[in-house]
């Protein structure tokens, strides 16, 4: 009896495996294709979810079964591991230039030029100047999705309580003035403390002033192509941030932000006076069910290094095709179509694709926030101010991934008081030059 049962179990296992394999073969033999889309936080964006819904109804993709993976908070770690393990993933999200170069250099995503040629797409016509942002070592590695631009948001109640005037809606503060305002509106102690501003552990929160003065992340290299971290603007920006954390105590310390895993959404809890962020913050402000608040939101220009000309920074993100795509040509076509649909559906950030007119941009937010003065016109003017200078917020240049990692590591040691400013600058210079020339 035992022998019979054993044989039966083995036979069942074998037949199940064969049946499963047969099913898989049938799936591909009936002409249907599978496209796996793994785009994590892009799923927060209605323009993306709207596009995803529409693409599944399109006649030209009627032979495609779409698998849309859920958001994954460990996306940046798990995606490369899944790709290295050979899992089929076709369309992936690229959130910023650092990640773009990192994944392209490692081979997580693949060059798209031959697929673009097959599709007969003129990237410059499709994406304008943003086509250049999609390249790594001269090859196109993604279809641009959105262009982020930042402004200064402020909590009117915090300003009112401190008796300080709101920031001017047209004329930007300098970073020095911004630090002074942050100190002036900081109030309370312990659990009741209201900070003047919220700075995250994102590097632009300290090197933003340098980016603006130098003209973007591509200017983090000197004439010889090495690190220009010895430019006095870096020391100035770093020291100002350090003083805001440890002297004025107008922003939480770097260590606290990391250990508390504080994200930008924390601004919505009302305990911070100001934050610089992109347009995504508007969707949180409009969502009072998730982020209830008893204060009004204001928008002002980003602080600048000097002068009265408005400046802002941002990045271009995009859709790429993973190395393990089973049908990269089809995946590229899907990614391109998604970028086109972005421009039709986008509400919170300008789409990089120029196919549609982007009529819905800021409309949803403006309708919901108009009561506190943030009408569609006000938001549009804040994000598209005439004559505003746009700079790249990330380091872009030779071996930028390693270079920026080094900057982040050394700066963290300075901001948590593990080493002094001079050592920090010297270490970035030494390690950065070595990484850049590697």
């Amino acid at each position: 009896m035992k022998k019979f049962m054993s044989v039966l179990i083995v036979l069942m296992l074998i037949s199940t495996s064969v049946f499963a394999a047969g099913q898989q073969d049938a799936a591909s033999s009936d002409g249907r294709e599978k496209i796996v889309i793994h785009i994590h936080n892009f799923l927060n964006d209605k323009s993306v979810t709207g596009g995803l819904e529409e693409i599944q109804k399109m006649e030209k993709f009627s032979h495609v079964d779409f698998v849309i993976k859920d958001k994954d908070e460990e996306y940046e770690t798990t995606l490369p591991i899944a790709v290295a393990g050979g899992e089929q993933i076709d369309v992936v999200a690229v959130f910023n230039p650092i990640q773009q170069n990192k994944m392209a250099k490692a081979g997580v995503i693949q060059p798209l030029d031959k697929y673009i040629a097959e599709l007969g797409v003129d990237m410059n016509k499709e994406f304008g100047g943003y086509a250049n942002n999609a390249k790594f070592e001269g090859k196109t590695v993604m279809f641009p999705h959105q262009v982020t631009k930042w402004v200064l948001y402020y909590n009117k109640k915090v300003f009112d309580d401190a008796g300080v005037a709101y920031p001017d809606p047209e004329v930007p503060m300098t970073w020095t003035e911004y630090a002074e305002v942050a100190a002036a509106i900081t109030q309370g102690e312990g659990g009741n403390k209201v900070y003047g501003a919220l700075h995250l552990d994102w590097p632009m929160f300290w090197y933003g002033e340098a980016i603006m003065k130098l003209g973007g992340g591509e200017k983090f290299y000197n004439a010889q192509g090495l690190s220009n971290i010895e430019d006095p603007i870096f020391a100035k920006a770093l020291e100002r941030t350090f003083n805001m954390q440890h002297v004025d105590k107008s922003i939480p310390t770097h260590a606290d932000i990391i250990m508390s895993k504080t994200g930008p959404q924390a601004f919505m809890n009302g305990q911070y006076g100001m934050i610089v962020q992109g347009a995504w913050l508007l969707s949180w402000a409009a969502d009072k069910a998730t982020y209830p608040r008893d204060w009004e939101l204001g928008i002002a220009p980003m602080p600048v290094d000097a002068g009265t000309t408005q400046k802002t920074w941002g990045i271009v993100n995009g859709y790429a095709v993973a190395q393990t795509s089973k049908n990269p040509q089809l995946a590229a076509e899907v990614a391109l179509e998604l970028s086109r649909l972005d421009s039709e559906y986008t509400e919170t950030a300008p789409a990089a694709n120029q196919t549609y007119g982007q009529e819905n941009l800021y409309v949803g937010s403006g309708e919901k926030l108009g009561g506190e003065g943030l009408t569609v016109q006000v938001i549009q003017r804040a994000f598209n101010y005439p004559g505003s200078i746009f700079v790249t917020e990330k380091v872009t240049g030779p071996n930028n991934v390693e270079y920026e990692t080094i900057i982040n590591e050394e700066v963290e040691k300075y901001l948590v008081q593990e080493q002094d400013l001079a050592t920090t600058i010297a270490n970035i210079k030494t390690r950065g030059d070595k990484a850049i020339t590697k």
Partner: protein
Amino acid sequence: MHSNKITLKQDLTAYAFILPTFLGFLLFMVYPLFNSLYLSFMDWNMFLGREGSEFVGLEHFREAFENEYFKAGMINNFKLAVMAVPLLIALSLFLAVLLNQDIFGRGILRTMYFMPYVATITAAAVVFSAVFHYQWGPVNNFLRGIGIANPPGWTASIKWALPTIALFWVWKNIGYCVVIFLAGLQGISNTYYEAATIDGANKVQQFWHITMPLVSPTTFFLTITNIILSFQIFAEVNVMTKGGPGTATYTTVFHIFDQAFDKFNLGYASAVSWLFFLVIVVITIIQWLGQHKWVKYV
């Protein structure tokens, strides 16, 4: 002849039983072990495989000795072992002795001490971080309440972050050590204590001269395994501090993870893994040799 056949059949049956485990061991232990040794000599591209990789000899091992994060990780591992393991052993022995007495609520207490061990590390670490949050946490609120104006920064301070991790690690593992110690204590015959009582030995003398020597094999086992475990610490660091602030809680396993899965330097990470393995082997051998001086096998 018949007997040989029976023996052969019995052997085959026995081997058949261990075959699945043995295959698993080969597949998930032996193969990765030797594959990582191979990778440690390669500049390995985990996405392109052998075609996108090149042989670099001992380069990664040389790099490791120059890497300040590897050095910081090793130093922190030693600091953590020195801080946490003696505290864990002493505290768990103390609790085990107490819980070995006929006290009220003994069963509930034993369960309570064991609960952190079975709790998910991530969930427990998040709660622990919140409890010890320097600004809003109840611990510092209490300390401020009793007049300490500047309580410790805990995980947000380079001075306190590693001790906080050590404290969490001790809290998490104490239940397991207590259970093992209890098993050891229950193996000590009461006759020793009865004889000592008749000879006039008090409780402290009985503890030092009977309990400690007779439980020393258990103490040795727990010391050796917990030192290894403390060196392998990762999840606690990853959840609570990400190795920071600065390099305050950066450990070697975190360095390996960071290099392999964030920076994609699989070859270098493999080399560090082997160096780390050798360090643990040396420490274990030293402990093994040293046991003769204090471990009593009765």
